[in-house]
């Protein structure tokens, strides 16, 4: 593994059992939320993770931090496989990897002051001894995220959405993490406030050398903040590469369709915009199509798509990978049940 990779997932799976109704409690099927993800996040980069709702991007973010258990594969964090951690190791992971949640109204405890919320990680990890030292650190953190340290004694309801999100970021930074997952961190904010938080995240990332995973359905925001972009579809990363390359010259038909659906705030461009229309809805993650999982909606579907599951391959710009047979058939053929091929 190259030295500058901070987080590395290999064959990561998060499958949820589906409970049947009535007497059939078991065996009703499996929901494959994350289904074989290979992903490297480089130290100091911002990786944007995009996809439609239900594609598994939040589940992936949670699994990378082990906030939910994975059912297969490995996640390497700075050289340690975190899927097997427990006790002290897990606590150290909690310090070194933080999360900024989507809803700043639900992710802060309404009965604790900002100071209590932000200083809890300091106590848990024993980072500052003594009340005075912790209060100083809280003031520092609040200042870092652009809040007046004088607000430390206030409760979440006294803040606007954007300010609350800043509190959430301060809490996530309290442990001096290397890695921060921002899961739809700007989705519930107004446009002008979104811009403030995006700028803050970019500043913090540069200032503290953070590694960010920025999960969002807003492609314009992702394009703005990310060094690289990964696109997810039905539990799998189907394209990844430099933000510029993925944003302007996507190689996977799904990425092309997704980008073409983003409305642009320029009337003249907007009238010229050619949209690639995808037909049908995203298949259920409990019934993932065989072969390429995008084949049921792909406008270019051809023969190998039915039974060869495409692997990510280098296409387009340097560092750009796409899982699509249009660039040459690479991948695993659909698995025949073992023993069936050798019929007598």
């Amino acid at each position, binding site marked *: 593994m190259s030295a500058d990779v901070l987080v590395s997932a290999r064959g990561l799976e998060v499958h949820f059992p589906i409970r049947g109704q009535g007497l059939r409690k078991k065996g009703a099927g499996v929901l494959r939320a994350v289904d074989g993800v290979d992903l490297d996040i480089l130290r100091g980069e911002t990786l944007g993770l995009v996809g*439609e*709702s239900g594609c598994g991007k939040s589940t992936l973010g949670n699994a990378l931090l082990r906030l939910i258990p994975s059912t297969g594969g490995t996640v390497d964090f700075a050289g340690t496989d975190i899927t097997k951690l427990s006790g002290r190791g897990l606590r150290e992971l909690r310090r070194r990897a933080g999360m900024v949640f989507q809803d700043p109204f639900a992710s802060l405890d309404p009965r604790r002051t900002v100071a209590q919320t932000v200083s809890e990680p300091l106590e848990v990890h024993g980072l500052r001894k003594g009340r005075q030292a912790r209060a100083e650190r809280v003031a520092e953190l609040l200042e870092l995220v652009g809040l007046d340290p004088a607000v430390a004694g206030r409760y979440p309801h006294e803040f*606007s959405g*954007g300010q609350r999100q800043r509190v959430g970021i301060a809490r996530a930074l309290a442990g001096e993490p290397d890695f921060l997952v921002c899961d739809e961190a700007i989705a519930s904010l*107004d*446009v*002008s*406030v*979104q*811009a*403030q938080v*995006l*700028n803050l995240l*970019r500043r913090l990332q540069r200032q503290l050398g953070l590694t960010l995973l920025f999960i969002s*359905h*807003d*492609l*314009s*925001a992702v*394009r*703005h*903040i990310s060094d690289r972009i990964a696109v997810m579809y039905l539990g799998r990363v189907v394209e990844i590469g430099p933000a*510029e390359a993925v*944003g*302007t010259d996507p190689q996977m038909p799904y990425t092309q*369709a*997704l*980008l073409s*659906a*983003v*409305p*642009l*705030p*320029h*009337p*003249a*461009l*907007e*009238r010229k*915009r050619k*949209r690639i*229309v*995808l037909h*049908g*809805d995203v298949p259920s993650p409990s019934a993932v199509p065989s072969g390429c999982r995008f084949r049921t909606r792909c406008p270019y579907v051809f023969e190998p798509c039915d039974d060869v599951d495409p692997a990510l391959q280098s296409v387009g710009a340097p560092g750009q990978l796409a899982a699509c047979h249009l660039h040459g058939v690479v991948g695993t053929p659909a698995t025949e049940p073992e023993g069936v091929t050798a019929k007598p």
Partner: protein
Amino acid sequence: MTAPVLEVSDLRVRLRTPRGPADVVNGLSYTVGPGETVAVVGESGSGKSVSVLALLGLLPARVATVTGTALLQGEDLLTMKPERLRQVRGPGAGMVFQDPMTSLNPVLTVGKQLVEGIRAHQDISKEAARRRAADLLGEVGLPDPDGALDRYPHELSGGMRQRVVIAIALSNSPALLIADEATTALDVTVQAQIIDLVEKLQADRGTGVIWITHDLGVVAGIADRVLVMYGGRCVEDGTVDDVLEHPAHPYTRGLLGALPDLAEPAVDGVVPDLATVPGTPPPPTDLPKGCVFWPRCPVRGDARCEHEQPPLAVIGSSAVSLPHRAATWCTEGSS
């Protein structure tokens, strides 16, 4: 010129709140012509949703005082008797609310909800209404419309539910369709499908549309005219090209600058920081004196900013029939 579908003048809404009276809409005037789409843009709390809820009499009378006039095909919605208003909602004006998860009744099938709306306004048999309902679901692009009639909302995805809500809003061929953040909760691909659908129906039937959104990208695609709201007022309006390409109000400029832009690539590999509008919108219980925007305004180029609310005034070069107007003291010299 044909008569407008909707003509709103000097609409004002005052709400009673525990913290005192809140002036959420302060003198809003606009018209919507047949087949025309007017986009109402603004951040949360700017009064855009309340202004349309007031039009349809959907604000509780106990807390809301609504004044002004709103002529829907010549009839004033604001002085209408409740019985007449009930007749008008549907064939006169249909509404699509933001959240497809909560705007359908979870214990009734899709078919029941559609048939109810149709039979409330049209004297047809249950069977005929059901056939009409299936047709509508087909029109809004729902796969297997006949099967969908017997499904419950929870069996449908978000995009499908929003299409059902749109089908209900369209079931009585309204002259005016109000879409309040109708696509905000949806993925871009589904959003694009819904917008196509509304544009098609609009072309077929000449429906006037009020499209409320905070997404300026959607506005650029769908709107003929744009109305920018801030602090319960229209601070700028005009054609979509005028407002988005030549914004005159510092707030509109701020909003556009704050938008990460997919069409604007990095310069030498460096993406510049977004321009931001400092601070947050003022609470409607405590609107600033003078120009509503001045506490956040980066320009403040006039002595009157802090004392006097600027009127909505026509800006220099715009055409007489499609005026571009802005309510600011600071139109010149800054770009």
